[in-house]
């Protein structure tokens, strides 16, 4: 794909160098962007950052490994509450340590859910993970003493470091935190996707019998994919808690799980670049639709449902125009511009190869 059309000789023959280069360039662009917009935009960008992490994690699970999850909102909740409980102490550890703990705790939960998921397929897996998403927020009111019931927990975050100046907007600092996490996540996932681990994910997705005959332990691979994906969701949840300053059950409803899946599908399942588009859409669409309903002065009934309507409409349009998601559309367009017929799989196929692993030549 385009971002990786770097020469495969010299230092760029190395996967990590190639991915880090893209990440550093992206980081510099984002640094400029976040420094030139107002505090509200920085807040929105901070939200995009953790959505990227969550959507990228899900796109690996669903796009590369073929497992659907409607429970990623609940996995984010595990991360968020982990962050809240750790930060609610007299001497909280540095934020990096907190976020790593969010990843670890959620990965463990993901391993348990994933072990169950590896026995289920298609709609049964969707149902089971949906039940997880519905059920988990209920625990907060059952153990209200620890989790604060419906009001949730406050998350105490440290202000931007003094070296940045007293006037430095905290929104920009938060944007930097989530964007840095997003870049690290994308680099790691891109490494994984282009390795034999990523190939074994895709082999299991495509044909379990053949994958087994090739020596791949199918169930173990599925659990591994679920753990990787859950770890991302945990990080995203921790970041969400930091950005919003709280962890409440209401923030991790089924709607969040569905939104993350919608983001992955919109961007193009299996594509990490698509995960970025999807995450941007998740933040931009509600903002655009509420602007629109204000301008046209719709009633509150319409207004509160506008984002859902726009999601739905956009999903339908994208599936009709570019069934491989936005990234699939971009790739097809690039192919047309280069005057080549794009090597597209048939229209009715719902999975795509991850864009970052397309072999050269």
């Amino acid at each position, binding site marked *: 794909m385009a971002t990786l059309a770097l020469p495969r000789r010299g230092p760029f*023959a*190395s*996967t*990590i160098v190639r*991915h880090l280069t893209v990440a550093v360039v992206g980081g510099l662009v984002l640094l400029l962007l976040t420094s030139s917009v107002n505090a509200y935009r920085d807040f929105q960008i901070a939200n995009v950052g953790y959505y990227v992490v969550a959507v990228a994690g899900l796109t690996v699970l669903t796009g590369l490994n073929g497992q659907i999850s409607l429970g990623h909102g609940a996995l984010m909740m595990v991360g968020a509450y982990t962050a809240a409980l750790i930060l609610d102490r007299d001497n909280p550890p540095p934020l990096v340590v907190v976020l790593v703990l969010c990843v670890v705790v959620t990965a463990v939960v993901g391993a348990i859910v994933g072990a169950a998921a590896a026995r289920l397929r298609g709609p049964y897996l969707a149902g089971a993970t949906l039940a997880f998403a519905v059920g988990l927020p209920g625990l907060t009111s059952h153990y209200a003493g620890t989790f604060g019931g419906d009001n949730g927990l406050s998350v105490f975050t440290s202000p931007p470091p003094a070296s940045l100046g007293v006037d430095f907007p905290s929104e920009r600092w938060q944007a930097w935190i989530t964007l840095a996490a997003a870049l690290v996540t994308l*680099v*790691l996932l*891109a*490494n*994984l996707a*282009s*390795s*034999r*681990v*990523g*190939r*074994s994910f*895709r*082999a299991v*997705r*495509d*044909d379990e*019998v*053949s*994958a*087994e*005959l*090739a*020596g*791949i*332990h*199918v169930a173990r691979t599925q659990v*591994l994919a679920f753990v990787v994906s859950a770890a991302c969701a945990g990080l995203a949840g921790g970041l969400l808690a930091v950005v919003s300053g709280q962890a409440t059950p209401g923030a991790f409803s089924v709607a969040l799980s569905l939104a993350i899946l919608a983001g992955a599908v919109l961007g193009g399942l299996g594509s990490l670049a698509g995960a970025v588009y999807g995450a941007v859409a998740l933040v931009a669409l509600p903002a655009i639709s509420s602007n629109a309903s204000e301008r046209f002065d719709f009633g509150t009934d319409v207004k509160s449902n506008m984002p859902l309507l726009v999601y739905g409409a956009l999903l339908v349009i994208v599936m009709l125009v570019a069934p491989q998601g936005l990234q699939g559309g971009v790739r097809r367009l690039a192919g047309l511009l280069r005057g080549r017929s794009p*090597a597209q*799989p*048939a229209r009715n*196929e719902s*999975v*795509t*190869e991850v864009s970052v692993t397309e*072999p050269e*030549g």
Partner: protein
Amino acid sequence: MTVATQAALRIDNLTVRFGGLVALDAVSLWVDPGEVVGVIGPNGAGKTTLFNVACGFVRPTTGSLEVRGTPQRRLRPHQLARLGIARTLQGLGLFPHITCLENVMVGADRHARAGFTTALLGLPRSDRDEAALRERSMAMLQELGVAEIAGRLPASLPYPLQKRVALARALVAEPEILLLDEPASGLSAAEMDDLAELIRGLRGRMAVMLVEHHMDLVMSVCDRIVVLDFGKVIATGTPAEVRADERVLAAYLGDEVDATDESMSEAPDA
């Protein structure tokens, strides 16, 4: 006939029952290292079931399976590669959404060493591993004369080429035992000659067991042939011996040979 003590694959007194149906009845056979053994028999004779037992897809009701002298009591399909067994499927089972080269690379995974952490961090070791797999897989495609389709998706290729990719995926693992399930189905006469040539080239390199309907192919490539009928071994011997065997003539060769109509319900991926 002498019985080697250390057969590559040995099946002893194997019985498989599906409910009331006896698919295999006290079947014994062995494949020596470097030997090509054909399993033939009329439709429903139990050939594919025999393969499925050898792959761990089907657990035998009674009887034993030995790989190079080691009994395999709880064989699972994902262990085959480690045991040095590769198998092609009747339905090919290519991975449809990854390129032909990557399909073959999955088959070569047995040779890879880099683990999860190495892959996650994109360490040079992972890159070296990948480059080695890629090279090995490319060489295999080249050997089978299909190097130019390495970057294509399997579905975009005609069936005989897909078959070669599937064969490359099995061979690239460099197995000690290769199980070929109907390698000639859907091939033209010329392509079948190529295939026969290829299988003869494998003799001495690995043990090959093949299930096949095309008698010409079986007779021309096999060192030994085992004939199944209604789940029982009714004859075993060299092609010449089997051809002359009256029970075989009665059970099988006397009938019209149907080249394509193997029962699909026996396939593991059906």
